[in-house]
C-alpha cells in the first residue's frame, strides 16, 4: 500500500429529488490497497460507488481520479451486472477487451475460475458464475482502480473467500480494489482500510485495527454496531418521501 491516493472524493453529496442519499462524503483511496465500504442497507454504499465510477453525477462535490494515465482508469462490477444474452462468457469478455487492447480473455476467465465455462452462454450461467464473469470484466485492461459492488453476492463461502483473495492479490501487485460488502469477516481479514457509511455520511474510516481500537471493540462487526447501533430496521434517509 502506498500513501499516494488513486482517487480523491471531496465533499460529495448526491440527492434524488428531495432525498439526500450521500451527504458531504470526503475520502482518499490509497493506491495498491483493498479498501472496503461497509454499512447497513440503505446507507448509500451503492450510490457512492456509482458516483465514483461516473454512473451518477454528484449533486455537489468532486470525484478526482489521480492515478496513472491509462485507457481504462477504473474497472467496475455493478451490484447487478447485465450481460448480452446469446453470447458466451468468452465472447462477452472478448467484446470488452476489443474496446481496449483486444487481448485474449482466457487468462481473465482462469483468474476467476471460469475457464471451464468459457463457451457457455451467459444466460446459462448460475448467479454466482455471472458474478465471477462480472469480476473478470472489471479487470479487463488492468485498470489501476477496480470498484466491486457486492462481489460476493450469490457466491458460496469458498468462492467468496476466493474473490476476496483475488482482490488481495491484485492489491499486492499494485492495483487498488474498492469493494462494498456485507461479509464483515472477509472484509476484516482482507481489507487494508474500511470506510463505514451510515445514513449517507462517513461515520468512520481508517485501517480496521485503528477502528477497533477507537471504538474499543474486538471486531469490525463491533465497529459497525457501535457506529450504527443495534437496529432491525432499514435506514430510510430523507424521511418517508
Amino acid at each position, binding site marked *: 500500500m502506498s500513501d499516494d491516493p488513486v482517487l480523491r472524493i471531496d465533499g460529495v453529496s448526491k440527492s434524488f429529488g428531495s432525498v439526500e442519499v450521500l451527504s458531504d462524503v470526503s475520502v482518499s483511496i490509497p493506491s495498491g490497497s483493498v479498501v472496503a465500504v461497509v454499512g447497513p442497507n440503505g446507507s448509500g454504499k451503492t450510490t457512492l460507488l456509482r458516483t465514483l465510477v461516473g454512473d451518477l453525477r454528484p449533486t455537489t462535490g468532486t470525484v478526482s481520479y489521480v492515478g496513472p494515465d491509462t485507457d481504462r482508469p477504473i474497472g*467496475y462490477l455493478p451490484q447487478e451486472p447485465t450481460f448480452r444474452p446469446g453470447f458466451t462468457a468468452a465472447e462477452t469478455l472478448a467484446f470488452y477487451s476489443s*474496446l481496449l487492447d483486444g487481448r485474449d480473455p482466457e487468462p481473465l476467465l482462469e483468474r476467476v475460475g471460469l475457464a471451464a465455462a468459457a463457451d457457455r452462454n451467459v444466460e446459462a450461467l448460475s448467479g454466482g458464475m455471472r458474478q465471477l464473469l462480472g469480476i473478470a470484466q472489471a479487470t479487463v485492461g488492468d485498470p489501476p482502480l477496480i470498484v466491486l459492488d457486492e462481489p460476493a453476492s450469490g457466491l458460496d463461502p469458498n468462492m467468496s473467500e476466493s474473490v476476496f483473495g483475488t482482490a488481495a492479490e491484485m492489491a499486492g501487485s499494485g492495483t487498488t480494489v474498492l469493494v462494498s460488502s456485507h461479509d464483515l469477516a472477509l472484509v476484516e481479514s482482507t481489507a487494508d482500510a474500511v470506510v463505514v457509511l451510515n445514513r449517507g455520511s462517513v461515520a468512520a474510516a481508517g485501517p480496521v485495527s485503528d477502528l477497533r481500537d477507537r471504538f474499543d471493540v474486538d471486531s469490525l462487526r463491533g465497529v459497525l454496531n457501535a457506529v450504527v447501533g443495534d437496529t432491525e430496521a432499514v435506514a430510510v434517509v430523507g424521511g418517508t418521501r
Partner: protein
Amino acid sequence: MTRGRVFGAIAWREVSTVARTRSYLLLPVGLLAVFAGTLRAGGGLEGGYVPTAVDLLLPLELLVPLVAVALGYRAFGGDNDDRPVLLTYPVSKRSLVAGVFVGRLVGLAGIVGTPLAVVGVVVSRVGGHESRVFATHGGVDSPVLFVRFLALTICFGAVVLAMAMAASILVRSGRAALAAALAVGVAVVAGGDLLALAGLTADAIGDDALGTALAASPNAAYRGLVLETVVGVATDRGAAIDTAAAVAGLAGWLLASLGSVGLGVDRRPLTGLRVRTRELRSRAVEALDR
C-alpha cells in the same frame, strides 16, 4: 484505440445480437409470407417491378415501423443495457449511439431487405419482358426502380428505428419502453396522415401546401418518395409530394431522434440542468439577501 474500432466493435455486437435472437429471425419469414399473399391478391408480380412496389407499399408502411419498433425498443433496455460498465471504457457517447444504431439498422436491412430481394428475384423470373430491361430513360419498368424502392424502404426503417430508440431510452422500465416505442409506431403509421387530414378539413392546410405538410410525416414522406421516384419515373405521373421537403422531413426526424438518443444515453440528461438551476437559484437568493 481509435473511435472507428470502438464503433465497429459496438456495431458488430448489435448485428450479432439481432442474428442470434430467434424471434428476430422469424420476422423475414413472416414478411415474405405477407408479401406473397399481397402480391398474389394484387397480381403485381406478373406486372413487373413497379406494380410489385405499388402492391407492397401499403403493407410496408405498416410492417416496417413494426420491425423497427421490435428492434429499437430494447436497444438500451434490460440485459442489453450495460452503460454503467461501458462508461468505464474509452467509449464516447457518439460511438455508442452510432454503433448501436448502425448495428441494429444492419439487422433491420437484413430482415426487411431479404424478403424484398427474394420478391425482386421472383419478379425477374415471372415479370414481363419489359421488367428485364435496365432502364436508361423514364417510362420503362426496371430492376433499378425496385432497388430504389428497397433503398427508400430501408431509409424509412432507419428513421422509425431511431424514433423507437429515442422513445424507449427516455423511459426507465422495459414495459414503459415497449409502450413508448409502440406509441411511436402508431404515431408514424397513422398520426401524420390523420393530422394532415384534420388540417385539410379545418382549412388550416391549403391544397398547395399539402405536399409540404405530408413531408413532415415519416410514412407520408416515404410513400410520397416512392410514388415520386419509383412509380412516377415509370409512369410519368409524379408530383405526389415535394421531394426536397420529404427528404428534409425524413432527415430531420432521423437527426432529431438520434440527438435525443444521445441526450438520453448518459442516463442523467437533466441532472446537469437541475444542478445549474439550483446554483442559479441560490445565487439569486444570495443576491436578494444582499
